[in-house]
């Protein structure tokens, strides 16, 4: 099973200064369906870079 390419429209931190407390806004468009009806659901995983 090959994963579709998730399209990220926006990955916008409120600050890019090192060590800053931020809010991170992400907008994305799915190209692979998940969470099909009658199943136990799916999940979204956001892996943060080392040091975050």
């Amino acid at each position: 099973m090959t994963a579709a390419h998730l399209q990220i429209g926006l990955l916008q931190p409120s600050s890019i200064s090192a060590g800053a407390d931020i809010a991170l806004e992400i907008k994305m468009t799915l190209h692979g369906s998940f969470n099909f009806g009658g199943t136990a659901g799916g999940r979204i995983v956001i892996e943060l870079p080392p040091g975050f």
Partner: protein
Amino acid sequence: MPILEIQMVESPKELGRLEFKVVGTNASLYLTKNFHLPTVSCQTEGWLNCGSAIILDMNGTVEWPSTTSISFKLSGIRNRPFSGPPATFRILTMDFENHVTDLNSTMQLHILPNHIRSITARLGSDLTNLVMGSRSLFCLPILYHRNVIFT
């Protein structure tokens, strides 16, 4: 467009584990639960070597089809405390059997230095016998740190 706004509940008490909560959503058809980081074995690897992740478990039974647009706002995240190489995020979706259905690992942030914007150094008096060229001045803070005064 489904919108999920997520906020960290409290400061992490152990490495690799953060608690998040939903503070706003308009996706009433898409029930959500358990915004948390799993326990990961960061204790021996160290924080800088061990990545962390935010996992959103979807509890609903309504399909999220292809072309569905989703917007997240995650708060309570702290940027890496140093600049340097780009910080790469990996975002993926998984189905109920943990098969990856969507993947993006190309998103990068370029972190800017924060505190020290410029620095000058002068030598302490006990180093006056050393013969130095212009290059060695930059080596001295490492070799003779206690004798170099930063202003």
